[in-house]
């Protein structure tokens, strides 16, 4: 253990274990968190980070082991108790009521009296003090839905501080932020620790760990595998500890000759059901043999762009050309027709659009292609052919478990994604539209999926990659388009890419607007 024996500990876990059925989610976890430090917990999806945090926050009770807060052994039965002990949590998905103002959200559950009038007055006073002390600028009287994600996150932090949190747990806090917003968050965290608050940061992003933490603990398969002082470790070492083997962190990039144009988008406008313009006069093109990345903070029109390109929703204005085929506002919506043009689509949300969760794996494996002659025999589906395809793809993509009869919902995120991606790649499309290919996917599978995309590119296919993971966009793309508020705010060639520039474009801070 690399912790100064004289340091006072805000939180200590001793031999904590938790089992769900046959799954050992946490095994003999030991953890010491120094008061006033930023302590990172890193691990792949399913490593047991969330379970551990839920135990610390009182949502789950450990089967065995001890938890100590400020040196005192405690039993946590529910979150209220954790809150009263000064433990606060900022969840990955914010726990905010969107129609409420910040003030209402913060006092919810900690109102004091039965009448709101007196509570709000005192709460407002207290909050203004906290805001001033920690530099957490938040407008208190605007409905949360109208505030940016960065501000919403600050409200969550305020919520914890208002409840006198001295230990703040942040679960994947930067997933929804621009790099600049993330930097702002880190400044806030630093200010908090300067005031004696202890921060527990859960993340799968190694760079964040390096940027902000003092100590880092690595989890793998339910166990705590290492504790390090951040200053004494490297990204490569942490990655290896997380995965349990050496990881090639960058994909091999090779030159591929540009082919003919596969996709051209002209003045594309998309309005959603409530009439809001989500995509505003977008123009770009995509050639065979290249990957074009679409970067941007989530919710800036990328989803709608992807859906309109896949033929799931109709454009409001403009044209989409796939070689000799065209989609205009007058074209009837027909995603199946778009598929027949050689356009495959890996949707952003595999649970909602990519898979039918109760379907068995071999059924999900041919979803969208079920009408093809080879999967049909007279009136019924050709089950032999379906099973064969699954067996072949499961082998090729190392989908685990191999069982074709397992429900899609029972696979891990990474394997579900492999089912979707293998299905779309297997269709040998000329154009592949990919949304968030590695969201909720563990490092090992990420590496594999990236390789597959590069291989497809090497075979002369055109790929449009939409992702909120900047690292992914940067390492895979030949060109990067940045979207902000439905507009393309910039296009950057691979050679000119740097994160600051992308961040500025993502926030549309350069002031320029490209067509």
């Amino acid at each position, binding site marked *: 253990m690399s912790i100064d024996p004289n340091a006072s500990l805000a939180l200590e876990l001793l031999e904590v274990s938790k089992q769900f059925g046959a799954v050992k989610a946490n095994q003999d976890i030991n953890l010491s968190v120094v008061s006033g430090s930023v302590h990172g917990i890193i691990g792949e999806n399913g490593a047991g980070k969330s*379970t551990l945090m839920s135990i610390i926050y009182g949502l789950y009770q450990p089967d065995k082991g001890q938890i100590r807060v400020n040196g005192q052994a405690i039993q946590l039965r*529910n979150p209220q108790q954790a809150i009263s002990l000064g433990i606060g949590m900022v969840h990955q998905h914010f726990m905010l009521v*969107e129609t409420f103002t910040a003030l209402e*959200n913060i006092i919810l*559950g900690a109102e004091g009296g039965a009448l709101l*009038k007196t509570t709000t007055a005192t709460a407002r006073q207290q909050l203004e003090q906290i805001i001033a002390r920690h530099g957490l600028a938040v407008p208190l009287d605007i409905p949360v839905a109208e505030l940016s994600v960065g501000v919403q996150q600050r409200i969550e932090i305020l919520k914890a501080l208002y409840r006198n949190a001295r230990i703040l747990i942040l679960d994947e806090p930067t997933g929804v932020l621009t790099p600049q917003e993330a930097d702002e968050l880190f400044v806030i965290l630093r200010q908090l620790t300067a005031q004696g608050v202890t921060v527990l940061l859960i993340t799968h992003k190694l760079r964040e760990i390096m940027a902000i933490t003092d100590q880092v603990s690595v989890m793998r398969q339910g166990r705590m595998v290492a504790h390090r002082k951040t200053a004494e470790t490297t990204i490569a070492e942490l990655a290896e500890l997380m995965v349990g083997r050496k990881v090639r962190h960058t994909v091999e990039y090779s030159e591929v000759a540009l082919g003919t144009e596969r996709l051209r988008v002209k003045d594309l406008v998309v309005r959603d059901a409530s009439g809001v313009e989500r995509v505003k006069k977008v123009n770009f093109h995509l050639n065979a043999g290249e990957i074009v990345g679409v970067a941007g903070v989530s919710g800036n029109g990328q989803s709608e762009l992807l859906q309109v390109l896949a033929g799931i929703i109709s454009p409001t204005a403009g044209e989409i050309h796939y070689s000799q085929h065209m989609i205009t506002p007058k074209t009837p919506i027909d995603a199946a027709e778009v598929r027949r043009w050689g356009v495959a689509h890996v949707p952003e949300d595999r649970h909602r659009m990519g898979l039918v969760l109760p379907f068995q794996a071999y059924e999900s494996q041919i979803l969208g292609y079920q009408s093809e002659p080879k999967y049909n025999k007279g009136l019924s589906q050709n089950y032999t052919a379906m099973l064969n395809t699954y067996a072949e793809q499961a082998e090729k993509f190392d989908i685990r478990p191999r069982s074709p009869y397992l429900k899609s919902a029972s696979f891990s995120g990474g394997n579900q994604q492999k089912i979707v991606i293998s299905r779309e790649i297997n269709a040998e499309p000329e154009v592949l539209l990919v949304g968030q290919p590695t969201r909720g996917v563990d490092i090992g599978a990420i590496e594999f999926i990236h390789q597959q995309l590069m291989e497809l590119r090497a075979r002369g296919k055109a790929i449009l990659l939409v992702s909120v993971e900047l690292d992914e966009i940067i390492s895979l793309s030949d060109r990067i388009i940045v979207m902000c508020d439905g507009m393309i705010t910039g296009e950057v060639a691979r050679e000119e890419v740097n994160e600051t520039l992308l961040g500025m474009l993502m926030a549309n801070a350069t002031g320029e607007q490209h067509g």
Partner: protein
Amino acid sequence: MNDILTFITLALDATLRVATPLILAALAGLFSERSGIVDIGLEGKMLVGAFAAGAVAYWTGSAWLGLGAAMLASMGFALLHGLACITYQGNQVVSGVAINILASGLTTILGLAWFHQGGSTPPLVGAQRFNDITLPGADALKSVPVLGDFYANVLSGHNILVYIALLLVPFCAWVLYKTRFGLRIRAVGENPKAVDTAGVSVALLRYRAVLIAGALCGIAGAYLSTAQNAQFIRDMTAGQGFMALAALIFAKWRPWPILAAALLFGFLDALAIRMQGVSLPLIGQVPVQLIESLPYILTVVLLAGFIGKAMPPKALGLPYLKEQR
């Protein structure tokens, strides 16, 4: 001129009478739905309340005991709905429909078994009913034109439940917007997870909301059998629970607009009664059925675009499942 004034006065007077159960039931729906529980069962709970009030008032001779029984019976049904929707996380619409069917069948059978009057309860007289009361100063102000006339002939002369219903509107608005309980109810209907992580029980909140809905439906039911009428009659709610639901949606789940919507629907209903046999110039006799169906047509047409999109509480109809492994 006087004829028209009398016509209007009478129509407004009838409006209040007809609107009262709508106000009460819509407020019931307000609590339930603001907490995230769909309440198709307003109709059934009113019916059960009406039956309990009619029966108990007849047995005990007290309208007030009848009212208490109505509230309890209706809350019992609300609890059943709560059990199905909150504890067992069932489909809320199906549960509501079941409540309606059960209420209709049970009141009929019990009515037949206990009173042998074709499913009705015996007629109520005197203190077995809520009788009309004259508001103070009504007689003195009668002669003042328009305002005095309105006070004496429209506002005054109703039974106590009408006034209770009217007073419940500001009261419910106050509870919903100015109290801790109201804040939590509104929160749990929008984002139950936020409430849960704030350390407040989602289930308990929703049970309380559903029980309040039961109590209010009970008052609405008692009004039907012991105030507006003088006995319980089979299926006497006749769709008023659904009308209240329409008023609730029409009002976009807000208390004051509920009052407005209920009064509008009540006015149309009163008009339908007044218009019977009256022939209008140029148009001739308007079919009563047309006017009677106006509230429904109005709801559909207005919701279809004129008042903008009805934005229900975000978590409405969704059972709350704690994340589990």
